[in-house]
Each structure stands twice: as C-alpha cells, then as structure tokens.
C-alpha cells in the first residue's frame, strides 16, 4: 500500500500550478507535469508517475482540468497512451521507457499499431510479416492493415515473425518501428463511410535496430497480449452520464420532432434506452470495482454491448428520421484522425458503427474470450498448432 491520498495529490497539483502557468506554453507545461510525476500517477517516479494507486488518476486529471490546464489530447494518441505505454512499462527496458514515454505522454510523438494483416485479423497470431536478423538490426518485410494514425505517427508498435519454423504463437517478436524509416509506405484505406481513418502500411526492407525490440525474441505474442487487453479496456473505460452516448442523440430527436413519432419506433426507442442505461450502469459498476481494487472481467462486456448499442441506436435514428434518413452529407474521400460518432449525420453514425463490432477485436472473438476466460468453457479443438 502507498501512502498517497486524494487530498495529498490535490495538494501536489496545487503546488505545481503555483509555479507553472496553465495558460502558458502548452508543451512546456505538459513536459513539466510529466517530470513532476503528475502525468500517470500510478507509473514509477521518473517515468511520469509517483507510484500511486491507479484510482487516484481521475483526481489529478480533474484538478488540472478545473484549473484550465491543457490536456495531452488523448484521443489523438490513443494507441500510444492505451497500448504502447503500458506495454513499454511492463516489458520495455529502462532506456526504452526513458526515450519514449515522455514525448508519448505529452503528445509530441504520436504512435500507431502495426498488428493486423490482410490474412491475420481475428487470428492475429497467423501474421506473416517477417523480421530477419542482420547484424544489430532486423530487416522487416510485410503488409499491415487497419492502422489508424499511421500518416501522423512517429512510432509504431510492430509484431513480426522472427522464426517461421516454430508453431505460430511462438515465432513472433514485438518491436518499436520508426515510421520515418525508409521502406515504410503508408496508403489510406478507404472505408464504407467514404473517408479513410485507417491506412495500409507496406514494409519493404525496413531496418529496425535490435535496441527497439520489446521483450525477448519469440516472446512477442505474450507481450502483445498485455497490449490487446489494454485496448479493450481503453475502448470501454470512459464514464458516461445518463443518455451520454448515442442514445442521447436519438432521445433528443424524439423530444424535438414530435411529428416523427410512431408507436412502433416508440417501443424501439424505449428498448434502446433501457439497454443503454443498463450498459451504462454496468460500466459504472466496473469502474467502482476497479476503484475498490477488485477489477472484474467485465471489460469485454462493455465493449461488446456498446458496439451492439451503437449499431442498434444509429439504425433506429436513421429510420426515425424517415425522409431525412435517406440523405447523407458527403461521400467524398477525407482523412479524419478519429471517428466522430456523435457528430455528422445519422447515416454516418449508422455506417461507422458497423465497424464497432470489428475493430479492436470482433464481437465474435470477444464472446469467445468471455466464454473461455470468464466462464471457463473449454476451447475448441485446435487444428493450427
């Protein structure tokens, strides 16, 4: 147990704010906050933290927000903050942590993820990208897909096969790849909304120094598992007020446009409202469990049900709009850096939400994970190892 308390941390923030102007230089302020251990308070001292309990992080964030301090634009660097940082902390060397964590946290360096491949989606361990040893470097060749932020990222976390002779999970190694290295080619991947949030990344003779290997050679799968778990919690972990998600948009529409109401859609909106509120309370309960030091396995449930809800509610919204639901705003190819599920049109939301049950682990995979890890049901007979 640490001797940190919420009050003590609020005191540290207040002291920090007395010597650092939240309205001054943005990057300078964030660097100083990192150096003061007030970035991730549960990280070790020297790496942005104070080794405090994780549930005190919201206290610190709230205190900075109240003071009008700039944040580190977390949605712009969600891979870096949600996946790369915890993996580096757990599996990286001290030198790696010192090189990468500070500019990652301040947002000076954005990160992306080179995991999925055209033939290795749900079955990520089936990946084919090769990394071959050459002196102090690895030479990487292959193709990755579904990489968000690749066109803005400085660094990527990368999974590549370093030993094709051993069974599939065993020959994979985890690297950090500099996206400015020659041989890294990024192409937009247009999605059904017309725009391209994601990219394909082609790796041709890309040299990655062995010092950028994370974890032991051949241990990449174990290293990645930490990260994949973090991705799911990151997606599902934000707290919502009542009607805070998509259901709020359709509820507002219902209230403001009485001429659209029908008895059938009334039942549907009530069903959706009930399910959204149940999912919200379950997510809140998960946060309370985590805060009480009893993290449960409910994280996968949160992602699964928000995907279903987003799809159901956006579909309802389009039908409720009727004539207007037949119209879209724009099919032009664009390059957003993050999905905008509460903005744009209902048709955009409906289409974009289809991806919620595919990205970050398909709903099918999540159900299997729940069945096996939570309920303890037996795995299927395996034919691929």
């Amino acid at each position: 147990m640490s001797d940190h308390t919420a009050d003590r941390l609020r005191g540290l923030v207040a002291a920090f704010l007395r010597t650092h102007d939240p309205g001054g230089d943005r990057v300078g302020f964030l660097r100083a906050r990192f150096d003061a251990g007030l970035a991730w308070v549960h990280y070790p001292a020297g790496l942005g933290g104070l080794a405090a309990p994780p549930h005190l992080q919201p206290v610190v964030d709230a205190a900075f927000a109240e003071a009008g301090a700039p944040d580190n634009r977390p949605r712009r660097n969600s891979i870096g903050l949600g996946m790369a940082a915890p993996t580096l902390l757990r599996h990286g060397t001290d030198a790696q942590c010192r090189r990468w964590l500070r500019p990652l946290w301040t947002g000076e360096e954005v990160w992306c993820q080179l995991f999925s491949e055209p033939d290795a989606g749900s079955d990520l361990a089936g990946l084919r990208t090769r990394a071959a040893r050459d002196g102090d470097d690895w030479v990487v060749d292959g193709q990755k897909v579904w990489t968000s932020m690749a066109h803005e990222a400085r660094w990527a976390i990368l999974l590549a096969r370093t030993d094709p002779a051993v069974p599939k999970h065993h020959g994979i190694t985890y690297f950090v790849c500099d996206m400015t290295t020659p041989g890294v080619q990024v192409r937009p991947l247009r999605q059904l909304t017309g725009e391209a949030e994601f990219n394909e990344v082609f790796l041709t003779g890309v040299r990655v120094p062995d010092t950028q290997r994370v974890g032991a050679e051949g241990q990449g799968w174990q290293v990645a598992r930490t990260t994949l778990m973090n991705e799911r919690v990151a997606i599902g972990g934000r707290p919502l007020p009542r009607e805070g998600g998509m259901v709020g948009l359709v509820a507002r529409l219902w209230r403001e446009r009485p001429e659209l109401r029908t008895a059938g859609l009334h039942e549907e909106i009530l069903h959706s409202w009930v399910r959204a509120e149940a999912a919200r309370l379950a997510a809140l309960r998960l946060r309370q469990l985590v805060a009480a030091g009893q993290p449960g396995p409910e994280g996968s449930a949160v992602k699964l049900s928000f995907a279903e809800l987003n799809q159901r509610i956006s579909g309802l919204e389009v039908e409720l709009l009727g004539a207007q639901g037949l119209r879209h705003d724009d099919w032009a190819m664009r390059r957003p850096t993050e999905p905008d599920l509460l903005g744009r049109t209902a048709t955009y939301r409906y289409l974009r939400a289809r991806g919620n049950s595919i990205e970050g682990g398909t709903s099918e995979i999540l159900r299997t994970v729940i069945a096996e890890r939570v309920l303890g049901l037996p795995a299927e007979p395996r034919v691929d190892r």
Partner: protein
Amino acid sequence: MTDLLYGADEEALRDSVRALLAAHAPWQRTLARLDGDEPYDAALWTRLVDQLGVTGLAVPAEHGGAGAGFREVAVVLEELGRAVAPVPFLGAAVATRTLLACGDTELLGQLATGERTVALAVGLSTAPPPDPDPTVTAEPGSALPGVVARVAEVGSAPVLHGVVDGVADALCCDVLLVPAGDGLYAVDTGGPGVRMTPVVSLDATRPLVDVGLTGAPARPIAAGAAASRAVSAALTTGAALLASEQVGLAQWCLDTTVAHVRARHQFGRPVGSFQAVKHRLADLWVEVTQARAVARHAADRLAAGDPEAPLAAALAQAYCGPVAVRAAEVCVQLHGGLGFTWEHPAHLYLKRAKSGAIAFGTADRHRATLARLVDLPAPAGRR
C-alpha cells in the same frame, strides 16, 4: 452517488443466507414440496427469521429491527432467488415498506421480530402507478392500486367486503394490509369474514391466494393520499427488490448451465466447447452482469429514499425481468431433454422467472412508466 457494489456486511449477510439455504433448502426438497400440501417451507422461514433476522433488516432499531436497509434486503433476495426458496420474504419486504410509510410502529415491530407475518393484499401482477405522486389524480381513492374491497361499518367499527385475487406471500400470513375505499386497513386473517383460497400457481414456490372478505373486521392504518402513497411506495419497492431476486435466479441458471455444458459430452467433446453454445452463454453473462448493476442501482436508490427510486425501479423491471426469463429458458434449452424433465430443477426457475415477469407489472408497463419519467412521450393520438 449510486453505490453498485456489495459492502463487507452485505457479503457477510449473503454468506449466512447462502449457508442456511444450502443446509436446509436444497432444490430436491423444494421440488418434492410441489406434490405435497404445504407449498411454503415454514421451518425454513422460521430459521431465516429467528437465526438471521431477515424480516427486521429494513426496520429501524427503535422499532425492533436491525436498522440495516433495503440494500441488505436485496442481498437476501438474491440468495432466495438463487435457491428459488419457498418463503414469503418478498411479501414481507413489501409489507415493511407499507408499514414504514404508514408509521404503524406496533405492527412493524411484530413483523420485524417475526411475531406476526404481514402481507399487502394486492394482486401480484399489480404495477406501481405510472405516476408515483397521487396528488395529480382527481379523486384521492382512485390512486390506490388494486382497490377491490369496500368499507362498511358495524357499529362504529369498520368491516371490509370484497375480493382480492392472486395475492402472493399471503397463504400463511397473520395480517393482511388491505386497500379499500380510500384507505388502507389491517385485517387479522384469523378473524371472522376472511377466506383464503389457494390458487394453482404457475410458480408453485410462490403460491398465490384469492382473498375473500365478507364483513371482516378491519383497523384503519392510513387514509387518503397517505394511503395512496404507502401503497404506491410498496409497489415500487416490490418492483425494485424483485430485480435482485431475478439477478440471483439468472445467475443460478447461468452457473448451472455452464457447469452442465462443461461436463456433458456429445460428439466426443464437451457441449460447452461448441462455439454457438459458448457465444450464447457469453451473451447471457453480459446480460446478467448488466442486470446486477441495474438491480443494485434500484436497491441503492430505494435505500437512499431518492426521488429517482421509481425510475430506477421501472428500469429494473424493464430490464431484469426479461433477463431472468431468458436465463431460465437458456438453462432449459442447453440442458436438452434433461432440462425438460420434472426431476431437474430448471423448471422451478423457469416458472419463477416467467411469473416474475408479470409480478409488479410486465416489462412493457415499466417501459411506459419510463417513457413518462424520462420524457420520451408516446406518439399523440393513433398512428
């Protein structure tokens, strides 16, 4: 803010109830009772009251109770749902809320100690009124749900006439709280003019009775708006607490089915290794997880006396009732032929779940209440 967890005292209470039920109410005994003449397990009830003091949990200490609250009552109900136990605890909790609202401390004290068993004489299917505030209705009496009896006087003492059909947890009770005219009355079931006719109930572990009153002597305990508010609060309490029973029931169905499909082999594999079975149970687990949060929220708001308690109760019955039914249906289905037999306990849970989906109003009525409470109005006029 709402507290959705279980406190240490609540966990200790759960352990006690579960241990008592494991020792004295295995399902085999409950099943055997179905072919007998005594649907309620009087011995079990005595143990719960005497050893664990369950009827006193929500009663303040100054009136002889434990001074805990409805969060604790909800924990007991989770365990009773898990064991599909044939005891009149839900009815006692509803009666407790009624008496707390009426301020009838004497009867409350007797209920708390188990000296007398009390039930609210309203049909089990009665929903809380959509508007919990009776002041908006024109006639005060019309806001009393379930009013079917009328009041007369013999000398200066009131007597009741009428019938109340399908009352739960009344079969063995000593006192009925009867809404009649524009008031609420206590009627001694051992007195004259009271006839209790047992019903062949869908859920035989919660047997119903039809109550017939023919000049039954009655003691007024509340009148007018106070009576309306008491009955309304009691029905909201029933709806909110039933959700915890449903969570316990659903969890048993899930756990039992998971255990079965792990053990049962077909085609040389555990049935639980087939992906469609796994995914169905994963979806059910998600629903039970959410139902637990919803039920906990309803109990917590009830215990806090929050004005949003009726909203939380409506949400609880809109969500948890259907989840419990689905859980019981999945349990029967994934047990295959075995789950369809009388000798397996799954049907006890199925019947309790389906009966619970009607108790205190069906889910659609609670959705309609939510529509009012959260301002999602029905379309004006006909389509």
